[in-house]
């Protein structure tokens, strides 16, 4: 930007000569031929870098004009160089300084001196202007920063408030969950007592009065026993479920082969009775809660044996597939364990439903069950941040797929990213 200089002199020739001297330095000039005109100009424009003003002018002289100029706050920054033919005494010069003038130039004008002096002030003005600009910028930046800080504080407070609420909700949920678990545990525990009595008394009835009871009497007692047994199984399974829910989430690297061997011992009798062939391929060691792996595989294996085809001895195969980046949504690595059987199978449309609590595909007269086993399996697998799913074809067999994370951090992560099943 070209610096602007206001020239004030009552004589045109003087104005022209000053302009001529300074013309090569790239300034822009505004002329005024009297103090009054100068003041008029300054009403409209005040962005002058410098005022060059003759002292001796009719009506308003230079000093008077300067005094009037400096009455206005906005104009006080503009330096004035007085141009005068007079050699003033000290008191006159002091008067000039008092009004705010910064310098004098004497006539006849020495062009070099004029240019030098003007350039000093212009330089000063430019620097000032830059400084002011920077100050403005700084102010704006400061303001933005302040706004940002305020916003951040506000959002931090919001986040904190939300967090607090979340924590409260989590606490509440945990408390409710614990209460529910305790309730389930107590309820099923206390429910077992009268049931045990029903079983014992019907036992005694059947044994002691066998001779007295006629056929339908025996049948009734048999049905009482049967129902009591079923209810007991149901309560036992609910109890197991609530125990699993209460189980602490502690995971240690455990050899699945050893766990499967334990399970095999538990189902030995049934397996023998059904002439089952159970093939366990080499399984990995994973970060799991071993106390939970037992019921998981126990349920999957007993299911495989239970739902065998009538005329085909069950063949159950357990195998693992290593590092597979399962489920597009996550990059975590899972180990997939397949439990395959050659049993009666089911329609694939039920593949998700079967994992819901109390869901059964067969009546009790066909296959006994409580509808809790697979719900328990799902709960256990999800407690490990894994997935369980099933594939099946009627009369060909079913495959249950358990995907467990390989990485301990992934196993321990607070909640599974997606609890959907990965097929």
């Amino acid at each position, binding site marked *: 930007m070209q610096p602007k200089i206001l020239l004030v002199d009552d004589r045109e020739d003087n104005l022209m000569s000053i302009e001529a001297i300074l013309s090569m330095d790239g300034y822009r000039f505004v002329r005024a031929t009297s103090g009054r005109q100068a003041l008029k100009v300054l009403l409209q424009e005040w962005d002058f870098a410098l005022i060059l003003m003759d002292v001796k002018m009719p009506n308003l002289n230079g000093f008077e004009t300067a005094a009037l100029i400096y009455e206005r706050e906005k104009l006080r920054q503009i330096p004035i160089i007085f141009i005068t033919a007079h050699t003033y005494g000290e008191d006159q010069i002091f008067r000039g300084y008092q009004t705010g003038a910064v310098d004098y130039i004497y006539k006849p004008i020495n062009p070099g001196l004029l240019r030098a002096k003007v350039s000093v002030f212009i330089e000063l003005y430019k620097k000032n202007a830059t400084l002011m600009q920077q100050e403005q910028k700084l102010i704006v930046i400061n303001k933005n920063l302040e706004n940002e800080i305020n916003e951040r504080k506000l959002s931090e407070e919001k986040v904190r408030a939300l967090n607090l609420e979340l924590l409260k909700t989590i606490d509440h949920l945990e408390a409710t969950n614990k209460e529910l678990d305790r309730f389930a545990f107590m309820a099923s*525990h206390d429910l*077992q*007592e009268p049931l*045990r*009595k029903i*079983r*014992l*008394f019907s*036992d*005694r009835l059947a*044994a002691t009065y066998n001779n007295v009871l006629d056929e339908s009497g025996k049948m009734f007692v048999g049905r009482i026993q049967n129902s009591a047994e079923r209810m*007991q199984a149901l309560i036992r399974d609910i109890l197991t479920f609530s125990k699993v829910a209460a189980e602490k989430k502690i995971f240690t690297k455990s050899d699945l082969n050893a766990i499967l061997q334990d399970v095999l011992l538990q189902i030995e009798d049934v397996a023998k009775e059904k002439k089952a062939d159970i093939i366990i391929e080499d399984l990995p060691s994973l970060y799991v809660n071993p106390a939970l792996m037992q019921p998981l595989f126990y349920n999957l294996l007993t299911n495989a044996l239970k739902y065998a085809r009538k005329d085909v001895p069950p063949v159950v195969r357990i195998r693992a597939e290593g590092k597979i980046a399962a489920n597009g949504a996550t990059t975590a690595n899972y180990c997939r364990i397949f439990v395959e059987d050659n049993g009666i199978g089911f329609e694939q449309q039920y593949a998700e439903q079967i994992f819901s609590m109390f869901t059964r595909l067969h009546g009790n007269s066909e296959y006994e069950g409580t509808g809790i086993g697979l719900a328990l399996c799902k709960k256990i697998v999800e407690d490990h941040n894994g997935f369980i799913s099933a594939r099946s074809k009627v009369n060909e067999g079913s495959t249950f797929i358990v995907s467990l994370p390989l990485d301990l951090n992934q196993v321990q992560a607070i909640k599974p990213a997606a609890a959907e099943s990965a097929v």
Partner: protein
Amino acid sequence: MARYILLADDDKDDRFFFQQAISQIDKEARLTTVNDGEKLMLWFLDNMDNLPDILFLDLNMPRLNGFTCLEQIRQNRKLSHLFVAIYSTSTSPQDIKEAFDKGANIFINKPNSFEDLRNVIRKVLDLDLAEYADHVQPDKFVLG
């Protein structure tokens, strides 16, 4: 030699089944029952010279529960060697551990059928109690 058995159980039905089972297993066996923990400890006061071979002790009883009785029994010089079989509906590992720590000899889960009840009592009566005289056996602690 006929066993002398003491049962402490507040459950009337369980006392009844126990009696029936004992009488079917061993006609010679003598059985005395008490209805709660407090009555059990009072019974001991009167019968210090006539102690049973085996005490079947329920855990969950009013007034004095089984654990407290067990503690008092083990602290009593004359009773400290009494063979105590916990006889409870509980299967909880905490209860089993507490019973073991407090010095019970074996732990029996009340069976669901009369047949099982007879079997488990027979097992206890057939035990060589001398084996348990001075120390409990962790691997044979839970029975039935």
